[in-house]
């Protein structure tokens, strides 16, 4: 753990840096440290923000100062191997592919010399790691998309993209949590609400989880949409198999 750095990030936050690249291994360590910090219930910590490379820890200097906090982190780091870290969960995201929900799926197919069916098969085959959430509330930064369906962004972005839209931009795939402008190639839409300010837990996903896209029919889409609106839908979630 010698490579971990405590970077001053103002007088009310410290950036605990684990590396300087995008990798599942670094993400796993960040998530493990986040759990360790939460379990330790250190007085004065306000919140923690995981990103690709680091965990930002926001704290109250009137309760704990920088020196004391980083000393506490040192001892946490030493004992991290003994802290049981639950296996990451996989959240299934039902998606209605193509049609008016995914107007660019044919562009993605032809750009990569594939059929629409092949694009759906490739997009739904993998489990995508949520490295972090950011940009807007509930937007997951996902890793792990196959290069076989990589497609550049639209030349001119759409003024409005519906919330729940699933798209591809370069080698990334993502889901728009709420309606917004954007230049992603849209291949489908999920009836799930990634962000709902009225909900007890407004944001559905969290960093460190995996996403698995599952194709659904129009009828299934409408049924789930209704259940989501009524608040009766339960996400299909299971532990990720250890590789």
């Amino acid at each position, binding site marked *: 753990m010698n490579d971990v750095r405590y970077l001053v990030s103002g007088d009310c936050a410290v950036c605990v840096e684990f590396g300087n690249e995008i990798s599942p291994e670094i993400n796993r360590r960040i998530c493990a440290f986040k759990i360790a910090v939460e379990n330790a219930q250190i007085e004065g910590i306000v919140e923690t923000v995981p990103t690709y490379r680091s965990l930002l820890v926001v704290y109250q200097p009137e309760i704990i100062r920088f020196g004391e906090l980083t000393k506490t982190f040192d001892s946490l780091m030493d004992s991290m191997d003994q802290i049981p870290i639950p296996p990451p969960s996989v959240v299934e995201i039902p998606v209605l592919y193509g049609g008016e929900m995914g107007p660019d799926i044919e562009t993605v197919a032809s750009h990569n010399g594939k059929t629409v069916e092949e694009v759906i098969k490739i997009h739904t085959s993998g489990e995508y790691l949520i490295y972090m959430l950011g940009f807007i509330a509930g937007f997951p930064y996902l890793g792990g998309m196959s290069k076989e369906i990589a497609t550049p962004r639209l030349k001119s972005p759409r003024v409005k993209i519906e919330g729940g839209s699933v798209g591809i931009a370069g080698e990334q795939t993502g889901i728009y949590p709420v309606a917004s402008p954007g230049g992603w190639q849209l291949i489908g839409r999920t009836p799930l609400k990634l962000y709902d300010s009225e909900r007890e837990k*407004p944001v559905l996903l969290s960093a460190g989880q995996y996403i698995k896209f599952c194709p659904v029919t129009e009828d299934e889409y409408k049924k789930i949409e209704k259940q989501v609106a009524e608040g009766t839908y339960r996400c299909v979630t299971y532990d990720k198999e250890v590789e």
Partner: protein
Amino acid sequence: MMGIKIASGGFLTTIQDMGRFGYQETGMSVSGVMDQRSASLANILVGNEETEAVIEVTMMGPMIEFTKDNFVAVTGGDLGAKLDGKPMPRYEAVLVRAGQTLSFAGMFSGSRAYVAFAGGLAVPVIMGSKSTNLKSKLGGYEGRKLGTGDEIGFTAPRTWLPNQNKRKLEPEDFSAKELTLRVVMGPQDDCFTEKGIHTFLHSTYTISNEYDRMGCRMQGNIIEHKDGGDIITDGISFGAVQVPSHGNPIVMMADHQTTGGYTKIANVISVDLPKLAQCMPGFRIHFEKVSIEQAQTLYCTQKEEWRALQNALAAQAEPASDLQAVAVAAASNEDRLSWSPQGTYRVVVNGEEFIVDLERESVCFRPS
């Protein structure tokens, strides 16, 4: 709903508290007041917790009509606060009566004023905060800036506060157009050359027109990177001095995004952020390096001063007379107290009705 009614909204008038913490990991910005010192002092003056929601007034102020009596304090920049057209004292708890109008007429110093109301504003607490998040359209008043016709209730208005004559402070001076902001270096100061760090700490930067609640762009000598201004995205703090590849600083303010992919050379310290929050385009800025220990000592000293002020204002002497005892009972039982235009209070204590005149220090029993 009795409280205030907005007769006109002004340029950008929003409800803010100290921000929405606990959700940055979901991508939700913190928001909150730009100038935490002015907002905290306004709250303390009217007997609130310093973190209570206030109205943040930006440059051109609103017109606020009162539909219920309450103690109010206006702090921050001098935007020409007026009560019924007459100058309203700043940094002082003032009892405003139903029917009176608070307005703002000008920009004399600073750019943001804060209005605190005793007992706070009755807007819903969403995800732990009353702050308006303009981008996510949530919190505050319907997730937006205030406009004509909006009505906001008071939670627990007061017409009596202990130590009323002590509830005033010397206003903070925001008249300087050239100022020094102290910073702690990091988190990515190692991405800059020695020359770049020297430039940053020894130049004058001018605030550009691109200054809003998200960030404050400045222009001046180019700060040299070792290898460009892009990094793999990480977290951002209020006051972070971001330097993208163009080499000019941008200070991240209250509505800053939670994460970003640009190098951050330093962070403005908490006690100096209010000064920047009150600046205008064209103002000139110097950055001065301090240690994290110094920054946190300054932060804690300020908190201790506020705590001492709060305690001094809340302190109540033992009642010297029955009159005072009645007045104190009345104050702690506001809903059974009413005020008459003659300056007297009608108080019901243990089912008996009293008329209290605080100025004349008289109390008379009125058999029902």
